């Protein structure tokens, strides 16, 4: 917790009835940072955002803004601005009036000042000329930009965004991601972003907070999260991965292990993930191998050492890569392998192939699989 910390959550827990929506979550966001709350539906990310905004009240724990607890402040007194999932633009007001709304409520200036600030905010998002239209007359992307302008014009301490790009089509989403990031960098506003789209989170964020069922699984920069996932869940959620159950047979130096893979009974070398749990021999573990780390080669009866036999049962051409679904010989397991470029001729459907991975690319996660206690910011 540095003096640069703007938003801090300390051991926040929130229940809805019997459901535990947020379980002892703690994290901090620094000034000017683009921080994303990422996770599947129901993981608690929106609840956390709404708690920061003041629409939910935590059952226990504290929420601090600029060092001071804000729990006694109702939503309209917090110096935050939020962009809602449905944009929440006032249909009975014009675009300009929408953008002026917050300035009016917070009495930030004279009417003419407010109007001119609103106009320049609209200019910043590229909507000059739309001032007198009503939100219903705008496209989804335009509405989204109005919502953004309405928030940014207040120059809030923190900008909150609740899955703002969800309703847009893919191309527009990608454009808006770039726009948002550019705006954030220009204005330097601290931003907390909520999404379930991991590609979005990874491409935009300075820091990613990954949530699962109300608990924080990992906090870190996108590269850290990708390269050093702290749990099988994290590894699985980000990118395309294979999760193989196995049993530890031998612990070796430098964090290496030898495991016996369930199903085939074959042995393989792998590396312990930095999950804070140290498994022992005989523990049931999970081995995580990223799809792009699976090496594929044509079936060769000669060198079977270290390779596993398989058969291609399906393939997807993703443009820059090809994704192959390989049924591992001797079991029902499907292994996903990503290759750069189009599918090679020897890897068409029903071809016999062999696959393996570098020992260092196989991350082993212990039985508990819990995230490291007291995840640092």
């Amino acid at each position, binding site marked *: 917790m540095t003096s640069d910390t703007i938003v801090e959550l300390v051991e926040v827990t929130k229940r809805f009835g019997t459901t535990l929506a947020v379980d002892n979550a703690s994290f901090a966001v620094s000034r000017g940072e683009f921080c994303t709350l990422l996770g599947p539906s129901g993981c608690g990310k929106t609840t956390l955002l709404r708690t920061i*905004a*003041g*629409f939910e009240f935590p059952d226990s724990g504290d929420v601090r803004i600029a060092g001071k607890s804000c729990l006694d402040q*109702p*939503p*309209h*007194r*917090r110096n*935050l*601005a*939020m962009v*809602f*999932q*449905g944009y*929440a*633009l*006032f*249909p*009975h007001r014009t675009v300009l009036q929408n953008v002026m*709304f*917050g300035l009016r*409520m*917070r009495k930030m200036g004279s009417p003419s000042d407010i109007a001119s600030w609103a106009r320049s905010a609209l200019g910043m998002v590229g909507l000059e000329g739309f001032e007198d239209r009503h939100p*219903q007359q705008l496209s989804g992307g335009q509405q989204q930009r109005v919502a953004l302008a*309405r928030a940014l014009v*207040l120059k809030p301490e923190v900008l909150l965004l609740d899955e703002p790009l969800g309703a847009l089509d893919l191309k527009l989403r990608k454009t808006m991601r770039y726009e948002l990031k550019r705006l954030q960098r220009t204005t330097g506003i601290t931003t907390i972003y909520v999404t379930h789209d991991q590609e979005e989170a990874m491409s935009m964020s300075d820091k990613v907070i990954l949530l699962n069922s109300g608990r924080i699984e990992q906090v870190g920069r996108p590269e850290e999260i990708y390269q050093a996932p702290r749990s099988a869940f994290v590894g699985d959620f980000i990118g395309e991965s294979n999760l193989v159950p196995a049993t530890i047979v031998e612990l070796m130096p430098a964090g290496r292990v030898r495991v016996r893979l369930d199903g085939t009974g074959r042995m393989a070398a792998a590396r312990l993930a930095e999950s804070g749990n140290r498994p022992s021999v005989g523990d049931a573990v999970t081995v995580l191998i990223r799809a792009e780390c699976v090496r594929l080669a044509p079936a060769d009866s000669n060198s079977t050492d270290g390779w596993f036999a398989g058969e291609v049962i399906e393939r997807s051409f993703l443009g820059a890569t090809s994704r192959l679904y390989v049924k591992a010989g001797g079991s029902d397991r499907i292994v996903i392998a990503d290759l750069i470029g189009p599918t090679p001729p020897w890897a068409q459907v029903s071809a016999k192939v062999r696959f393996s991975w570098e020992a260092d690319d196989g991350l082993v996660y212990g039985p508990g699989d819990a995230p490291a206690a007291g995840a640092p910011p």
Partner: protein
Amino acid sequence: MGPTMMSGANTRRYRPRRSIALRVVVAAVYVFLFLPIVAVVLLGFSENISIIAFDQFTLRWYRQLIGDEPVLSALWFSVQLGILSGGLAVALGTMAAFGLVRGPMRGKAIMQTALYSPIVVPEIIIAVALLILFVLLRIPRGYIALIIGHSVLILPYVTSIVSARLYGFDKSLEEASANLGASPIRTLWEVTLPLLLPAIIGAALIAFKVSFDEVVGSMFWASARAQPLPVLVFSMLQFELTPEVNAIGTVMLTVTLGVLGAYQLVEWRRRKARM
């Protein structure tokens, strides 16, 4: 929506045999429904009073109506009463709607039953009950009694209409308003009520209509000086039967159907504005 076009390929679509009998019956029912209304309107323009049927066109009864002081003041009184009791009911009913839709779930069924009970109880009983209460509280029959009584009868209608609109209200608009700095009261004023306005206006029109046409309760609560039009008409029907009542009836129909038209207009505009 019901089955529409019958395409050749889609012959298994349920399409009842084109029954002439059904159409005849339905048409007859509609004729039956409109018969009295048409009769009243026509008779209001009919010259001959000894034969109760349409005779010669005349505006005689309307001329008589315009000069009929008690009728005109009763009409005017009914309008005022409709506005005042309707306004009171709208205020209370809107509050009730907020309480029902936004309030906690516990006890909601009981609240709903309580708020809608005036519709379920026969009017005569409400008329009698309030009469007794007015006597006990020494509230004289007349203006105040009528306003109170009508508001009780109208309240469920307003509650229902505003609740229906409030139920689907987008709460994120209010959250956005709060987030942007508006206190709960300002949010109510700037966001919620303006968006609720069409429903409130609709409810106000219904409220007016219910009050305007109210007979039974008015009979018990009115006084000689404070007499809504239906009460006057009723006593006219009991004592002196002149064709003028047909003209009065037509005027009453015009007022309430005008209100209906206005209500449909408000609804139509609201639906248009949604998009």
